[in-house]
């Protein structure tokens, strides 16, 4: 290991983030290199200074009491809530959700008239992200549209229109069944380059609830139609690609 490589690894070694094998290689270099030893000692001195002279502030008793009180109050009159396992999302997404101040306001107000729409939007994004985080975003792998369409039959009331747009650059890769609210709905999964595209086929009653277009963390949800049925597209494609795809969908019969 040369000194350049070693100095790049030095903070990782110091912070205990190097794997053991690399750690040993680094130590071998350390034995021979006074510069790296000095740099390591400097890091240690800084840590020592910080821990000694910039002590940790402890939470004031008043704050602790305030939170303990609210926790106790919540525990005493909390009705058991129904868990919706399908809403279980990747923790990272929850972070994004909690973090997004403006979007939070639009999504989180239970009393607003747009509540149904917000919940639907939330469900669809959640479904998309959960699918991306899973080993595979699909339940049935497409060899072509003729394997996907029959797969839905019998699992849901109405099988959706299924069309492959591979020649247009949007290949059908499969399908799955997901939930919007308590409805089981079909999801068609396409791929365009590195983008995974989910097409949620919505019940007619729900279609009016789908917003025109909503952006969230670099993902877009857009209302569409598929063979006359309302649908929603969720993907991270750019606007032009999305518009092209939406037009293709609307032409399918």
């Amino acid at each position, binding site marked *: 290991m040369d000194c350049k490589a070693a100095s790049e690894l030095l903070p990782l070694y110091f912070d205990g983030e190097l794997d053991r094998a690399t750690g040993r290689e680094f130590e071998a270099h350390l034995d021979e290199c*006074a510069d790296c030893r000095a740099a390591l000692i400097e890091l240690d001195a800084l840590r020592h200074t910080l821990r000694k002279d910039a002590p940790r502030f402890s939470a004031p008793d008043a704050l602790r009491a305030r939170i303990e009180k609210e926790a106790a109050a919540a525990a005493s009159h909390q009705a058991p809530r129904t868990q919706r396992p399908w809403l279980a999302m990747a923790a990272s997404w929850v972070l994004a959700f909690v973090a997004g101040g403006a979007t939070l306001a639009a999504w989180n107000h239970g009393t607003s008239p747009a509540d149904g729409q917000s919940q639907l939007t939330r469900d669809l994004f959640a479904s998309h992200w959960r699918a991306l985080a899973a080993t595979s975003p699909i339940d049935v792998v497409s060899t072509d549209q003729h394997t996907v369409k029959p797969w839905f039959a019998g699992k849901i009331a109405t099988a959706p229109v299924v069309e492959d747009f591979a020649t247009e650059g949007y290949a059908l890769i499969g399908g799955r069944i997901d939930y919007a609210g308590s409805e089981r709905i079909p999801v068609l999964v396409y791929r365009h380059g590195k983008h995974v595209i989910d097409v949620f086929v919505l019940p007619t009653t729900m279609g009016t609830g789908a917003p025109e277009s909503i952006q969230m963390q670099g993902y877009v949800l857009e209302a569409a139609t598929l063979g006359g049925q309302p649908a929603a597209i969720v993907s991270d494609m750019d606007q032009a690609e999305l518009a092209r795809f939406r037009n293709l969908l609307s032409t399918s019969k």
Partner: protein
Amino acid sequence: MMSTSSRAFVDDLALSHLDAAYNLGRWLLGSEQDAADAVHDAYVRAARSSETYAGGNARAWWLAIVRNCCLARLALRNKEKRNVAIDDNPVAAEHWMPRAEADEIEERLDSSRRRQMITVHLRNLPEHFREVLILREIEELSYREIADVLQTPIGTVMSRLARGRALLQKALTDNGTMEIPHGL
């Protein structure tokens, strides 16, 4: 992980990492009152979204919410430009101490003065570097945990940490608060 109630889970989480939350708030906001309020905001938000928490590092999840609440307060403060009471106020005059006096000061620094100096220098660091130093050196979070808190890639954590350490080290040696360590 969320066997009985997700709300109880958040309560336990917030209470067992309350010092970490408050410490982060103090270093980000500077004020005792603001830090306490931000942590309380964070608790309310975490409780409200408890049902959607689905695994991952719980402490990082909680601290990320705390951090977001602090940043929201900072943004508001900047917007309002009102006078905000900052306790243990950075002593600007001392920070800009002429270098010629540094040696003498080094000898006379008692521990409370040293504390004040470190506080001033940490305060003077840009927020991005300050928070990463607090999370790593004082709260002892791993790179992965810090990345989760800041919602940034690990590479960003590493570069901010390196830069923050270098800046702080320079500031401290420049005015003699930190002794230059002697080799092994």
